[in-house]
């Protein structure tokens, strides 16, 4: 079915179930309880999980398969966002044309940058992509302000011309993004006992697109084209000696992953119609690199996990402040409560960067294959207990090649 083997089909089903049931899975703690702080099942964060998941899946097609480490992928995401917002401003609030345009524009932009950058390999390639992205960011922030609205970011206004649709709604507000009338922000709230679950239209659109993107990436990974890309990673020189020109393959991979980034950018703008220049900064490019490596480069599921991991820290840990801490430890005697708060304090709230940095180090030191390896080790432990023979999933975690790129 679907042109993939059983193992992959199972993986796809697992991902589909996880994505569709995310509002339940991410909200394990009852609303109002002290642990509700750790709930991530609200629309904005769930959308971010899947959108950055798409971004990382796309990045992994380039990095995981060919080994080419791009440090400028955020530029494609940014370009995608800008095109989507311009589409909202000029054409219609329907997200479909916006997303399509953002994929196309990002594809063309990545074709241009890829064509130039892929003339070099290794770290020289990385620096070329970094240079292009930083140029885009610096220009978007300053001289390109008429197109990008600079520091503030491109926003919708009440005076947008919008050809198909109105500039403003009847009550004088800016119209909201929708898919043929279904508003992206509309949320169905469901109470189950002490729990409150939110089902957001925008999230489900993102989730379905992510599943499609995941399936497509899976097909690419298993296709002859994917094999060719792996061959490039393993030994490009040998490939060249056999008379094959590897450049079209790497360029195709580069453009595909650029289009994934554009798709993510377009979705981001569709969920929240604003495009800021910071999306193109090198830190944003670095973030997707970290997501992919953290989750497990070259694996199907790893980058998605990595994306979720980083976004979770950014959004959940940064919100834990001292009064929340006092709330948690309130059951303890005062002295101990204060001591514990003092110990935990540097790692949460404004110290969330510190925790993230420590976790980066811990993961890479103890789990060389990324988070996915952690999952495999746990799975293996269970399998051993059951006494069944270990079934190493080498397809999903090919051996790390000992170099950035070739």
């Amino acid at each position, binding site marked *: 079915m679907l042109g993939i083997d059983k193992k992959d089909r199972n993986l796809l089903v697992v991902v589909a179930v996880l994505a569709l049931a995310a509002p339940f899975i991410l909200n394990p703690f*009852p*609303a*109002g309880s*002290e642990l*509700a702080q750790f*709930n991530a099942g*609200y*629309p*904005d*964060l769930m959308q971010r999980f899947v959108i950055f998941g798409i971004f990382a899946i796309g990045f992994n097609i380039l990095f995981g398969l060919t080994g080419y480490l791009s440090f400028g992928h955020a530029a494609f995401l940014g370009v995608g966002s800008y095109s989507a917002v311009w589409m909202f401003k000029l054409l219609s609030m329907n997200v479909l044309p916006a997303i399509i345009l953002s994929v196309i524009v990002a594809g063309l932009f990545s074709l241009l940058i890829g064509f130039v950058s892929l003339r070099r390999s290794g770290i020289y390639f990385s620096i070329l992509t970094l240079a292009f992205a930083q140029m885009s960011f*610096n220009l978007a*922030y*300053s*001289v390109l302000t008429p197109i990008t*609205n*600079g*520091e*503030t*970011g491109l*926003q*919708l*206004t*009440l*005076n947008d011309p919008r050809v198909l649709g109105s500039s*403003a709604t009847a*009550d*004088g*507000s*800016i119209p909201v993004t929708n898919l043929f009338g279904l*508003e992206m*922000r*509309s*949320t*169905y*709230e*469901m*109470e*189950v*006992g*002490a729990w*409150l679950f*939110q089902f957001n239209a925008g999230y489900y659109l993102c989730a379905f697109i992510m599943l499609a993107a995941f399936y497509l990436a899976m097909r690419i990974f298993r296709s002859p084209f994917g094999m060719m890309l792996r061959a490039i990673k393993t030994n490009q020189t040998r490939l060249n000696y056999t008379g094959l020109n590897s450049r079209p393959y790497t360029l195709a991979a580069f453009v595909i992953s650029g289009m994934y980034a554009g798709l993510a950018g377009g979705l981001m703008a569709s969920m*929240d119609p*604003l495009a*800021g220049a*910071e*999306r193109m900064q090198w830190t944003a490019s670095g973030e997707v690199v970290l997501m992919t490596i953290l989750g497990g480069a070259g694996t199907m599921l790893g980058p998605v996990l990595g994306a979720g991991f980083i976004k979770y820290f*950014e*959004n959940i840990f*940064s*919100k834990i*402040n001292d009064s929340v801490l*006092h*709330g948690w430890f*309130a059951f303890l005697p005062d002295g101990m*409560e204060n001591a514990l708060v003092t110990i935990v304090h540097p790692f949460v*709230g*404004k110290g*969330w*960067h510190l925790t993230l940095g420590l976790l980066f180090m811990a993961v890479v030191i103890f789990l060389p294959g990324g988070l996915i390896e952690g999952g495999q080790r746990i799975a293996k432990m269970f399998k051993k207990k059951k006494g069944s023979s270990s079934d190493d999933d080498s397809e999903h975690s090919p051996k790390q090649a000992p170099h950035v790129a070739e």
Partner: protein
Amino acid sequence: MSKTTLTRRGVLRSGAVAGAGVALPTIFTASSAAAYTNEPTGSTVTLGFNVPQTGPYADEGADELRAYQLAVEHLNGEGDGGMMNTFSSKELQGNGILGKKVEFVTGDTQTKSDAARASAKSMIEKDGAVMITGGSSSGVAIAVQGLCQEAGVIFMAGLTHSNDTTGKDKKANGFRHFFNAYMSGAALAPVLAARYGADRKAYHLTADYTWGWTQEESIASATEALGWETVEKVRTPLAATDFSSYIAPVLNSGADVLILNHYGGNMVNSLTNAVQFGLREKEVNGKNFEIVVPLYSRLMAKGAGANVKGILGSTNWHWSLQDDASKAFVKSFGTKYGFPPSQAAHTVYCQTLLYADACQRAGTFNPCGVGQALEGFEFDGLGNGPTLYRADDHQCFKDVLVVQGKENPTSEFDLLEVVEVTPAAQVTYDPDHPMFAGGQLGTCNPGA
């Protein structure tokens, strides 16, 4: 310290215990059951404090958070009451807002539009915040203001100085207490002309982004109106750390004043570099060379050390003011934290009090009601003299301070001295002034 969290969701929970395990679809599309977004139904109300906690403005964000905590204490009737005692409106009782205890959530803007919006969204979607406030840059303020307009909550801007916040990007749900670039120019120019003479030639270095441009435009037109000549306007990259190549040509350009339209780290570095180049000891056109920093922040100016001495600029508020309100605030803040508050702390404290008072007067948390109560509101006793929250653009009009780096500071906080308090009338402009044109407030959005 124990805390009972009784948010809207908490109450929903207690109401729904009976149906445990049974799905009870209650609300469809953006909570049509409530009158407005995140209507507080329990005994508490949640405010969202969205400030930079990482990145270059983290210290400013930390000071804002301190002021917010102080304001919440005062609203809930703890502490000495601070400026609640001097505030001209006496609606606040010290029992929270409209009888509901004030609780808060905090988030990190990272001084990035995206992160700031994500953080504000999580406060609105997850924590049920009915008002968002904070921030330390105009880009973030405008981005979050736009979000709050869409989501249907009130946004009380923190430190944002760009004309655009209440100019071309103004929003019905957004309110700004802080002054703006136009006001800086209007307050500073007469002082500059009086001190340095009317026939000066100015060289502008400007941070190359929206705030820098509005600042440059404001101060240039204000000084030109008084007879100054603008020799050159040079844009510098935001990411620049070493300004030597921009400062070196200044002396040779025929200019005798350098105006640094920089803020934060940019300001610290460009000012330090300018002093390093010995500009202030030079004479050009037979006059002493002068440097001006239109927007001062005491916290940041500290980073420039002794280089700020004698340099003129403007600020929204300074702890050395001797009116009762400022003294009460400094005492309250200083007793709790051991150092005087910054202008960022002052403005966010005022914003929290103003919001609470408006709810109280409106008798509701509905953004439309609160907005109406704030529009055209005249008050006093918050440290800036008589102030008007103008209805046309949601900007506060109040006195602006012209300050100068102190020659002989007595402590590490004593960096600036107030040289003139420019009356509000002198910095007031028409709502349709060209520097503020192009935007519309729109209508208030309660979100339901």
